[in-house]
Structure formats: structure tokens, C-alpha cells
């Protein structure tokens, strides 16, 4: 089992003819993802890695029944690409592109909500249902199928932790990156709900960071969850007013600090790891019970 995507998910790659797009198309295919189409305006009729390229997402849906899309197009064109996917009827949309103006993201999110689209990102590593399908850019090698759901705001830190989990023999149902920007499609709560409902998921790892208040909001929901949650929050040593790489990782105007997040999670019964490698320890412990 898994959430949101599985081996039957039919994926279109927007920006497939670009460097990133073509590289990750191959990687996703290597993982077993059912890539059915690519879209690059003006390149209809081409093939990339044996995958047919179309001029529009609507054509990719019409001819290849795509139901998910991943966006690799450059930031200035990403809003239009997202609108195209949402408008054409894509159900799961992953936006990998970084540096999309957040005013564009506000509009993308709004349209996604209106059209009931699960929109992941911008600036997300994507989503991987272990052993089934990967939409996005995380390394294929780190995932192992198993009972843990992982949801995170960052990329490499998540790879580090998932890798630890796999090395300890703790596999994953689905791992999902919400995206590091200040405005992204989903929040922790949305994904926690799905993991709570998913039969195969027995525990959840939540990897948060400073900035915003979604960890605090997640804590409220976690109180009602039946499944255990292990957390890690990055940014303990970050000074206020500074953007720590991610556009969303900033303590400003008294909000978004480390302490409030950790305390909220702890109050909700989350076991919060102090250093990344503890996460796998905690999860392994929990699953033994």
C-alpha cells in the first residue's frame, strides 16, 4: 500500500526535453515509475527515453491517460505549466522547480484547491511509494518497502533519514516532500491524514524545520491520530530573520521558531529526535512493540 501514487499511476513529465527533465525521467523509469508521456511545447512528436512527447498536457491525457504530472520547467514558466496541468485534469501534481515566485505559488495553490488537485511543491523532491513508483528527484537507492510513512519539508535531510531507516531494515510506504518554499500546496496535516487512513502505514516520520507554523498545526491533528509519529526539526541553531536556504525556513516577526515546534510536537505525543540518526532508532523501537 501507499498514499497518492502507486505503480499504476500514469505520469507525464512537463519539461521532459530539458536537462533535468530528461535525466530524472530516466531515473524515475529505472525505479519502475509508469512514465507515459512528456510535454514540451513545440516538441510534439519527439521521443525522450522512448517516451512520446506532446505539445500539451491535454494531449498527453487524451492519448496516454496520464493522471499525474511532474514539473521540471524553469521558474518563470512554472505557473503556466501548473495551470495547464491543473486545468487539463491532472490529479497529482509534483512541482520540483525551485525559485518560483511565491505570488505565483499562491495562485497555483488556489487553483489546485479549486480543482481538487493534490499539488506537491514547489521546490519539492517529490514523492516515492517505495518499491512502486517515484515522481520527483530523490535517489532511487535509499528506499525500501515497509511500514513507515515519511513526510518532510527538505530534500537531502530526508534522504539521510530515509537511508538510515532502510539501513536498519525499516522500510517505507510513501515518502513525500512538501517543498521548501514559503508557499506550497500541502501541509503536514494533509499528509498525516492520508497516512492515518493508509492500512499499511504503521508509523510516521515527520521532518520539519523552522519557519511558518505548520508543525504546530500538525501537532493539533496528531493528538487525534492512532499511529505513532517520530519527529525531527531542523534549525535549532538558526538566528532569527535569516533565511536558511529554503524560502520557508525563516524565523520572523516572533513566529516560526524551533522551540515552539518541538514543544507542540512533544505535547502531541511525538517522539522528537535531537539528531537525525536518532529518528531511525526511535522508529525501530516503536515498531518492535
Amino acid at each position, binding site marked *: 500500500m501507499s498514499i497518492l501514487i502507486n505503480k499504476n499511476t500514469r505520469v507525464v513529465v512537463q519539461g521532459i526535453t530539458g536537462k533535468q527533465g530528461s535525466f530524472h525521467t530516466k531515473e524515475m523509469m529505472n525505479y519502475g515509475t509508469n512514465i507515459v508521456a512528456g510535454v514540451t511545447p513545440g516538441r510534439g512528436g519527439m521521443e525522450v527515453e522512448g517516451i512520446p512527447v506532446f505539445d500539451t498536457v491535454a494531449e498527453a491525457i487524451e492519448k496516454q491517460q496520464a493522471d499525474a504530472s511532474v514539473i521540471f520547467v524553469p521558474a518563470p514558466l512554472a505557473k503556466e505549466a501548473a495551470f495547464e496541468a491543473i486545468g487539463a485534469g491532472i490529479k497529482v501534481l509534483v512541482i520540483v522547480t525551485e525559485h518560483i515566485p511565491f505570488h505565483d505559488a499562491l495562485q497555483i495553490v488556489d487553483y489546485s484547491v479549486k480543482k481538487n488537485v493534490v499539488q506537491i511543491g514547489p521546490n519539492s523532491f517529490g514523492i516515492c511509494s517505495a518499491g512502486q513508483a517515484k515522481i520527483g528527484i530523490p*535517489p532511487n537507492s535509499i528506499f525500501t518497502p515497509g511500514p513507515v510513512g515519511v513526510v518532510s519539508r527538505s530534500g537531502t535531510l530526508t*534522504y539521510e533519514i530515509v537511508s538510515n531507516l532502510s539501513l536498519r531494515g525499516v522500510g517505507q510506504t510513501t515518502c513525500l516532500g512538501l517543498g521548501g518554499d514559503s508557499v506550497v500546496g500541502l*501541509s503536514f496535516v494533509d499528509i498525516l491524514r492520508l497516512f492515518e487512513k493508509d492500512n499499511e502505514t504503521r508509523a510516521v516520520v515527520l521532518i520539519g524545520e523552522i519557519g511558518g507554523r505548520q508543525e504546530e498545526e500538525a501537532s493539533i491533528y496528531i493528538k487525534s491520530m492512532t499511529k505513532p509519529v517520530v519527529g525531527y526539526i531542523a534549525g*535549532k*541553531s*538558526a538566528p532569527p530573520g535569516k533565511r536558511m*536556504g529554503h524560502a520557508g525556513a525563516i524565523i520572523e516577526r516572533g513566529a516560526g521558531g524551533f522551540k515552539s515546534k518541538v514543544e507542540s510536537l512533544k505535547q502531541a505525543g511525538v517522539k522528537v529526535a535531537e539528531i537525525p*540518526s536518532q529518528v531511525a532508532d526511535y522508529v525501530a523501537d516503536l515498531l518492535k512493540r
Partner: protein
Amino acid sequence: MKLYEYLAKGIFRAEGIPLPKGGIAQTPEEALIIARDIGFPIAIKSQVLTGGRGKAGGIAFANNENEVTNESTRILGSMLKGFKVEKVLVEEKLTIDKEYYVSITADSFLKKPIILASSQGGVDIEDVSEEYIVKKVVDIDIGVYAYLGREIARKLGMQGDLMNEFSSLVIKMYNLFRKYDAELVEINPLVRSGDKLIALDARFNVDDDALYRHPNLPRLTEGEEWELKAKALGLSYVQLDGDIAVMANGAGITMATLDLLAIFGGRPANFLDAGGGAAVEPMAKALSLLNDTKPKVIFINIFGGITRCDDVARAILKVKKTTDFCAPLVIRLTGTREEEAITVLQENNLSAYKSMEEAARKAVALAKPASGLEGVGKCQY
């Protein structure tokens, strides 16, 4: 990108937001000319990109020409919270009957623009208790109309003409928020002076990612030395006050690395995210920059995913060939092409850790004065 108060006010003025009379001066002479034009009393406000200017002595008042000259001479060229004051804004000093706060930003949880306002103006909004803060979420496909402004005004206790004036002000602020891809449009305090509402201060931050859409906006040239250098290289860098320079790949893991060093008793010198999938060249540039900051230890923490560990090793060697590292290197490498990387490093008498924790402990130990290892690097402090 933050704009100086006077630049923010220039943008406000173009949108029709009411402001005090004023002008910008780079010399006491210029300040005097502006003051004469306005009439007394006046305010002299240092233009630096930091809050709390008043408390730090960066804002002065003058009742006559002598005072203008004295105060502007004192302020211009002085250092304020680490920033040199190059310009002052000379403005009429208003009679203040009441101070309000109003700002527009995006709420990252609601994923919508949000208007915050308070009748407790003049202090930082984080110091105002929740009950005095009015929040209104904006539907981005609808925008802000007069009724939304009226509704906020009502909650601030305004009526009649003042309500309408406030409402029109909020519409203008929202227009600017959208037009300039602003992160923050803030007026604090917004003052009532007689029957008029006037923006006494102005903050205007623009999304860096959207600057390409605003070629006419000025570009920031003020900031910490290394942050500006890193920015020029396209790197995500934050200056900290420690002695262990850090480079990792990814914002989250870089933050986690700093945290780990701190937990182990170390003091990170910076945040530097080399990015996911960075190639040899940019990584070498990042490393050179770190070396230039003359830290006690350089800690490289790489989880190879798209980033190839052998590329990291090559970047290290590339720097080593042209510059001497002024501090010991602690390298942690794991993931994609890990073995190739180790081989390359060993051939050059370098080694790498596999575990992030072990490596962090080593870096902290090397930086400790008690470790007996200070001066291992070749740099002069």
C-alpha cells in the same frame, strides 16, 4: 530583498499612500536644505536595513537649523547596529494623535495573503498581544475591495471618513503587494494626525525569486561581507558567529549540520547550502569562499544522491591545488559514488567519514581551544 525606508516610501507615494513631507540627504547641507523647505520641527531618520533604529539612536528630531546640522552630522557616516549610515531621510515631524499597525504578507499555512492590523501601533507586531491584532485573509482571485478595509477599520475602532481613508489605504497596499511581488508591505506606525491617516514608517520586502520581473526596482547592496560575496556566486549563505565553516548539500541537512555541531558544543561559522546536484565547479567556488572566511575548521557534509561524492572529492582537490586550506578539513561523504570519492581523497592524503555524527564530533574537537589543536591550520588570526 528589503528596501530602505526612503525607497519604500517612494513606491508608496507613487501609489498615492499619504506620507509625511520629506526628502533624502547624504550630507548635513542637503539635510538643511530639505529641513528649510519643510519647516520645523523635523525628524532625521538614518537609512539602514535594520529595525530598532530609534532605540539605537538612529532617529533624531530638530527644532531649528542648528539642530539639523548637529544631528545630521552626528548620524551621517556613523555606524548603526553594524551598518554605516550613508543617507538620512529628513521629514516633517507630525502631531500624532494615535498610532496603528498594518501589514500585508502571505500566510504560509493558509497559503493566502493576509492583512494584519492593530490599534497598538508603533511597536513590533510580535510584541502586541493576539487580542489586539486584526487578521483578514484575502482570496487571491478576488483581491481587496473597500469592504475588507472597512471591516478591518471597524475592528480598529475607526468610523466614518477615517474608515474610508483606511480602506482606501489597504487597497493601495494590496495593489503594491501584488504588483511588486512583495513579501511584506508594512506601515508601522500608521498615524492619525488630526483627521488624516499618514504612513510614518514604511517597510517593503520583495521576493528575491521574483526580482527578474522588476528590473526597475533598485538592487540591495548592503549586507554582511560574506553574504554579499556568496550571493554574487549564487550561493545560499548565512553568516553566523562561530568558527566552524560548514558546507552541506541541501537546506535541511545544512541546518541539521549546524544544529549537530552546536549540540556537540561547537560553534558553526556559517550556513552554506551547496545545493542538490551541484557540479565540481560551483562546489569548488563555495569551498574557496569558506576558506577565505578563515575559520578554525572546515566541515563538509555531503549525502550523495543526485550530488556525486566523487564530484565533491574533485572539488576539494581542485581548491587544494590552487589555494592552501587555512584550516583542517573534516569531510563526511556517503551515497552515490562514495567509494570512488574515498579513493580519490586517499590518493591525496585526505580521508572522509561515513557517519555525520562522527564527523561532527571531530570538527567540534578540532575547533576547541582545549583540544591542543589550534593553529593546525595555516591561517593567521
